[in-house]
């Protein structure tokens, strides 16, 4: 029977998409999401993105610190390549990061495993492990400086009990960086413990129960359940601790207060050297060039790490 309707109109009503006014629900959700992010994004753009861009521009100028600018192209970058102190600072930074990042991972995870069960004792222990993080970095550095001072520091009074004496923890280039790494670790590990605690609490208890029924030992449980399921947390901890080791506040504050980069430049990490160039010598252009290179290297390493670990996501292969 001809109803006078086109074939298209003959299609069942359900299969005909009804065009709604405005955005689809999915798009509205996107827009809402971006609007929520917008204030933070604007803040980041103004207070991080813009200074970074300006720093990159500054890097191609010779700046005398008194309002004098002269375009020098890539001269500051060339100078960097020839500056032995820059390379020494880069080596010290790499060594500091290589020592600190794995230690932070192991100690943060270790502490989290120790205090993961919820009871009063563990609550106190968690607070104690996190407590250093609540103290000003400058105070931390000054207190440790007193504790490790030659001859009369409390640590130097205790080490003879272990058969070790006469060590200058901050005055000997062989020990100064290790001391700074230790203080940084002491300060930061409570923070990473908290992050790992969050990760551990996300792992369903049923996995452990099932493993125990199958006869798995605690080590097997850790190796085959805990560690794999902590991948996203581990990725986050490694990324953040690496950035902190290279450019974190503790890398500057602790070192600047405890050693000023000495003795003999043995603790002069890149950000301390950059600070010296900018604020002690007024070489703002050169400091900006070094800062730019540091940021670019950090971004590349982060991207590489992200790709290699697939962003710390679970693998279902």
């Amino acid at each position, binding site marked *: 029977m001809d109803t006078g309707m086109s074939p298209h109109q003959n299609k069942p009503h359900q299969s005909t998409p009804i065009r709604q006014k405005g955005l689809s629900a999915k798009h509205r959700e996107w827009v809402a999401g971006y609007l929520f992010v917008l204030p933070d994004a604007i803040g980041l753009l103004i207070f991080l993105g813009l200074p970074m861009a300006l720093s990159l521009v500054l890097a191609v100028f010779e700046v005398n610190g*008194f309002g004098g600018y002269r375009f020098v192209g890539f001269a500051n970058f060339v100078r960097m390549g020839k500056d032995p102190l820059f390379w020494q600072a880069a080596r010290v930074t790499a060594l500091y990061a290589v020592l600190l990042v794995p230690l932070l991972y192991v100690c943060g995870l270790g502490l989290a495993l120790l205090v993961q069960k919820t009871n009063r004792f563990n609550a106190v222990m968690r607070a104690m492990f996190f407590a250093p993080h609540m103290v000003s970095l400058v105070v931390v550095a000054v207190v440790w400086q007193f504790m490790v001072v*030659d001859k009369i520091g409390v640590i130097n009074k205790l080490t003879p009990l272990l058969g070790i004496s006469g060590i200058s923890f901050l005055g000997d280039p062989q020990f100064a960086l290790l001391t700074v790494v230790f203080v940084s670790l002491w300060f930061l590990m409570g923070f990473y413990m908290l992050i790992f605690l969050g990760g551990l609490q996300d792992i369903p208890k049923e996995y452990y129960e099932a493993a125990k029924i199958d006869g798995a030992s605690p080590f097997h449980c850790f190796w085959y359940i805990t560690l794999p399921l902590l991948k996203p947390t581990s990725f986050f901890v490694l990324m953040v601790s690496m950035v902190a080791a290279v450019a974190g506040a503790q890398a500057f504050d602790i070192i600047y207060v405890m050693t000023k980069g000495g*003795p*003999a430049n043995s603790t002069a990490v890149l950000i301390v050297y950059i600070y010296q160039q*900018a604020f*002690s010598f*007024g070489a*703002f252009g050169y400091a900006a060039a070094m800062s730019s290179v540091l940021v670019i290297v950090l971004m590349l390493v982060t991207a590489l790490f992200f790709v290699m670990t697939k962003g710390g996501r679970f693998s279902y292969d």
Partner: protein
Amino acid sequence: MSDIKTLGNGISRRQLIRKGALLTGAGMAAGLTGFPYINRMAVRAQAAPLKFWQFYAPGGQVKSQVDWFTKMIGDWNDSHDQKVELEYVPNAEYINGPKLATSFASGEGPDIFLISPGDFLRYYNGGVLQDLTPHIDDATKADFPESVIANRMVDGKIYGIPMEVEPMAMYYSVKAFEEAGLNENDVPKTWDELLEVARKLTTPNRYGVLFETTPGYYQNFTWYPFLWQGGGEFQTKDGKSAFDSPATVQALKFWQDAVNSGAAPRQVLGNGANDTVANLAAGYCAIQNVGIWGISQLAGNAKDFKYGVFKLPTPANGKYVTVGGGWAFVANAKGKSPDAAAQFCAWALASMDKDSVQRVADWCTKAKSDMPPRNSALQAGGDAFTQGNIGTFAKNIHPGTRAEPRVPPEVYKIISDAIQQSQLGGADPQQTATAASQQLDAFLASYSGAPIL
């Protein structure tokens, strides 16, 4: 039903928008009428007090120094239309912090400020030091000994007026000497004697002698006399490096030997090796290499501590010489009123007026314990410069004073690294001196600022 939705209080959205627009318009109009006021503020800013940044007052810890600065500013403000205002910056922030550097970088530097010879070239080469010469008469110029004023001058013009001369010496603890069976007759006169006495004074809780260990301008400053005593220099008269010399190697090795022998520490306490209270008076060391300011430090904070001073020992066949530091008033050539700022500096410290001379004498005798940078102030100080430990400085130590060198930051860093590497890094002094000399030559070949002295 009407399209126009009403709000709770009966005002429609359209009405709200209209009223909002009216309010905005009124606000903008008010803002426009405010512009003249803003302009008036700009005019007022031009007549605003000149800012004098320093690390003594009004927030300083030493009352006599706060009083000296406050009185000086009061006297000036009472007699001049252009007022000056003190702005206190903590010492550590002033010397090592970013405040001064960032203020100049942003064109907001202070009108008047203090600099040491170590920093003179950075500011002079940056073009921010105002010529003070037009405000200083010839009689006053002659009142400053050449050795004191030379490193604040370029091409015969004065860019900084020193407020003090601070020669370096050695301080010793009488108690530590007595405990080691020593007395004032055992005060060392040569480097070898100093190391020997220091070893005798060293105990499980105390070092025999203390030199600065923290890298910085101050460490270089304290090391220069040991370089000079053997006839060493870091630069020849024709502007080439003179650092690779037996005198340099000898001076580097002397500090290295002191540390390696265990008689000198690798770390210093308190504010650094310039802090006599935290190191010498606290018993951390028995002898300390420090400047004349140690007298007022100990008088103020360790009154009962018994100590003596003696001049720097010399190497075998060496000649006695010490270094004299000290801060100077300078005016910002890019400040609000450079000429008025320069006039203030000259009025305060470089006039033959009785008050100006007495002000310098008071600073060196009452506010601090320093040697005066002017001959007239030395006379005005009278007995203060002949008695006690200051008398020892005036009579025995100060006559061998050589002015602190003024060097660009690059030269400072090369010398600093050489000292650090040999003193604490255990590097061979000869190789260190050679490597540093090559770096100096490379820098000096391209240096184009005011003469390095």
